[in-house]
């Protein structure tokens, strides 16, 4: 069979013997579709099975290849020329409330070789638009550009967007006033604003939350993990905060002023103090920014790299000079970098500069910040206790914030029901089980929020047939997203066709999602129009196109 096939490719005559619908057209090879294992990522695994099944209906030969994350990262991220199609995800973080990080990093041609554009998307028209939105400070003008970028992506389908998951969290409404819980756009009720605002109504004054991930470090200069970030957010203040509406607002800064396109003056709030009683000064702010870019904090460094100069002006004003104009500077730098006490960290950094280790391996016994909660104690693998900072300019209503480390969803749910925790902040289990439990219990309120993050299927645009936008459009159209939402995500997700989540209402291009047509018939007609042969039987390339793979 193999021999005949090879012969037919050369001769172009025998081809008609086995590919009845097409003449002299190159067959499309078997496509390898990567997924993570069912045990680790049940929804992804399930979605991939469904997608493979739908693609086979088009006449594509699909092989699903399951591998753990470490292998997948190696196969896709580090070997950019050899994979075909893979399941992938972007997680939602408050900094991604600004669309820049996603629309720029994921698709700009400059990040194709080593950065986030691992799919190899290269569209000069698109590059131009996302570069322009970066430096457009006027929100309405910038919005138009962001929408246009989404439209280009919808037409090109470099990724097959699947869904924005809905994360479900729950809390005990007999302990907290339900109206005091803040549902942050795209992040959910497990938000910074909830921890500040949530109001206990009875004797239980502590917020007790859970995480299945272990806490790795409580370190203001180390991006060590998602859970760790909940803690550093509370212990350390930043100049700005991403608000519940997704937009940056002054925080430790009292006010700010853009002096020109690349100069911003930030005036500090009066009277803020660190947990050890020392005042927060402009010197501390300068020190904090210099510490992130000074070589001892490699993971934070990119967030401060656009700052080309920083100076103290008067008593409590800091002037930042930017390397290039940036519309997202408030969100991506000022709302990201922790303000740390110079008197604590200066000797530490001086000591570290002579060693191989950097600040990421320095764990303080008692982290000192100026944030709304103070560090109390850390029992490894068990819990971390913070207490409210009554002197804070936005002092929390609860007395303590206690993070319990609970390795599995089963125990977490059991603990929520027994009151051992009162706010379920990490639930990897089946949301339906949570809803059923809440209904049975009566005391629990479940809130699910559409995520900023998303799940998608990435095509390797460097390799045919994925270099053809029509082919990608067809594959994407072949799968009705309702199937993915219902069967794979058990209805806890919304169908997607844009990388900008509907949670970011201001930036989201709703038309792109609403206008998306899907179904096997739609896909087949796209393929036929584009000249593909053997549709529904054994797909072949359009006439004149032959499979060329550099491997």
């Amino acid at each position, binding site marked *: 069979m193999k021999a005949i096939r090879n012969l037919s490719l050369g001769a172009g005559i025998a081809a008609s013997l086995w590919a009845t619908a097409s003449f002299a057209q190159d067959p499309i090879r078997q496509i390898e579709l990567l997924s993570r*294992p*069912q*045990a680790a990522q*049940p929804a992804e695994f*399930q979605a991939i*099975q469904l997608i493979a099944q739908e693609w086979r209906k088009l006449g594509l030969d699909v092989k699903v290849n*399951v591998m753990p994350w470490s292998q997948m990262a190696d196969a896709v991220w580090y070997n950019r020329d050899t994979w075909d199609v893979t399941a992938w995800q972007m997680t939602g973080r408050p900094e991604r409330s600004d669309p820049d990080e996603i629309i720029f990093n994921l698709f700009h041609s400059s990040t194709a070789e080593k950065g986030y554009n691992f799919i190899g998307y290269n569209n000069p028209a698109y590059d131009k638009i996302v570069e322009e939105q970066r430096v457009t400070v006027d929100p309405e003008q910038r919005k138009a550009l962001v929408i246009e970028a989404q439209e280009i992506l919808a037409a090109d389908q470099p990724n097959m967007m699947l869904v924005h998951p809905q994360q479900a969290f729950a809390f005990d409404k007999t302990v907290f006033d339900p109206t005091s819980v803040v549902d942050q756009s795209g992040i959910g009720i497990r938000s910074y604003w909830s921890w500040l605002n949530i109001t206990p109504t009875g004797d239980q004054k502590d917020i007790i939350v859970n995480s299945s991930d272990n806490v790795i470090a409580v370190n203001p200069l180390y991006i060590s993990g998602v859970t760790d970030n909940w803690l550093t957010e509370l212990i350390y203040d930043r100049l700005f905060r991403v608000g519940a509406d997704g937009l940056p607002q002054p925080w430790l800064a009292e006010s700010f002023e853009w002096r020109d396109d690349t100069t911003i003056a930030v005036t500090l709030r009066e009277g803020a103090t660190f947990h050890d009683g020392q005042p927060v000064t402009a010197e501390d702010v300068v020190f904090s920014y210099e510490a992130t870019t000074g070589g001892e904090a490699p993971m934070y460094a990119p967030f401060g790299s656009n700052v080309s100069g920083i100076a103290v002006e008067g008593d409590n004003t800091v002037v930042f000079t930017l390397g290039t104009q940036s519309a997202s500077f408030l969100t991506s730098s000022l709302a990201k970098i922790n303000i740390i006490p110079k008197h604590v960290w200066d000797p530490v950094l001086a000591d570290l500069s002579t060693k191989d280790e950097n600040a990421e391996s320095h764990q303080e016994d008692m982290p000192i910040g100026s944030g709304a909660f103070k560090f109390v104690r850390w029992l490894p693998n068990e819990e971390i206790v913070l207490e409210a900072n009554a002197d804070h300019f936005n002092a929390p209503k609860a007395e303590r914030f206690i993070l319990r480390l609970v390795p*599995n*969803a*089963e125990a977490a*749910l*059991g603990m929520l029901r027994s009151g051992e925790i009162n706010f379920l902040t990490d639930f990897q*289990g*089946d949301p339906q*089980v949570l809803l*059923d*439990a809440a209904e049975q219990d009566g005391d629990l309120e479940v809130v699910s929020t559409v995520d900023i993050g998303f799940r998608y299927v990435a095509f390797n645009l460097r390799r045919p047939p994925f270099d053809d936008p029509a082919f990608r459009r067809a594959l994407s159209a072949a799968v009705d997203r309702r*199937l993915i939402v*219902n*069967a794979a995500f058990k209805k806890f997700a919304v169908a997607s066709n844009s990388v900008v989540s509907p949670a970011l209402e201001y930036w989201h291009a709703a038309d792109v999602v609403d206008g998306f047509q899907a179904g096997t018939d739609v896909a087949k007609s796209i393929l036929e129009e584009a000249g593909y042969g053997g549709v529904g039987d054994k797909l072949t390339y359009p006439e004149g196109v032959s499979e060329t793979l550099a491997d």
Partner: protein
Amino acid sequence: MPEAAVIRKPRVLSRVFSAVRLPVGDPFAVVGLVIYALFIVTALSAPLIAPYDPTEILYTENYDLASDLLPGEEGHVLGTTSLGRDIFSQIVWGARSALLVGLTAAFMVAFIGSIVGLLSGYFGGWVDALLMRLADVAFGIPFLPFVIVISAFSEPSIWNTVIAMALVLWRDTGRVIRSQVLSLRSRGYVEAARVSGSSDLKIILRHITPNILPLSFLYGSIAIGWAILTEASISFLGFGDPDAISWGFMLQDAFNSQALARQAYHWFIPPGLAIILVVSAGFFISRGYENLLFPKLGR
């Protein structure tokens, strides 16, 4: 004096037969043997008994996942898992994994242990010293952690788990066989064979090996239970072979899919019972063997 352990006229074949002679006189052992028979039949005819492929994701007619069905619903005897797989079929196929793991581990443990015991006991001297220090080392290695590390850092497969177990578990068999060989070596007929010029190999094969086989079988049958339990623990912790459906895998799946919170007893009780049944059957049989070999011990 135990009848099977005292051998005057060594005849290889008859010794082998006496070794595998089933302890049918012991009621415990009979129960164990019946369970084993059922277990082996199930494992061998799994494709015939199981109504579905254990990893197949099942759908209802209108494209919904056939997940979390209760026993009896849509013809699933024990219901389905959260990912729409048939639980009964998984139990049946799990027997096959258990049989494979149990038998290969038992064989390897008995084989390595017997060889070590034979060499150590027969040759003595530095061979003995070396092998017994190796046994000490094996006793010093925490068994389950060792298997976890090996299973986690090598390709996930049942075989790596089995090999890791065998690398440690031979120690008990090795020590016991050694002391048995020591006492056999001083017996008259072995001395006689040596005086008459038989080679070491011949003495070991003809005069000693047949007498230690019953012990090898005893320790092998104990290892079956250990292996099944260990494989279950490894799978439960998530270091098992994701493609092989075993009872331990089922329990891991159930635990992580919150069968406890769902009160889905039909999901997590059957695999546990299956393990208990098969492992205790192994214990019953080994007790029977013990009674046969050392009538003093059991009662």
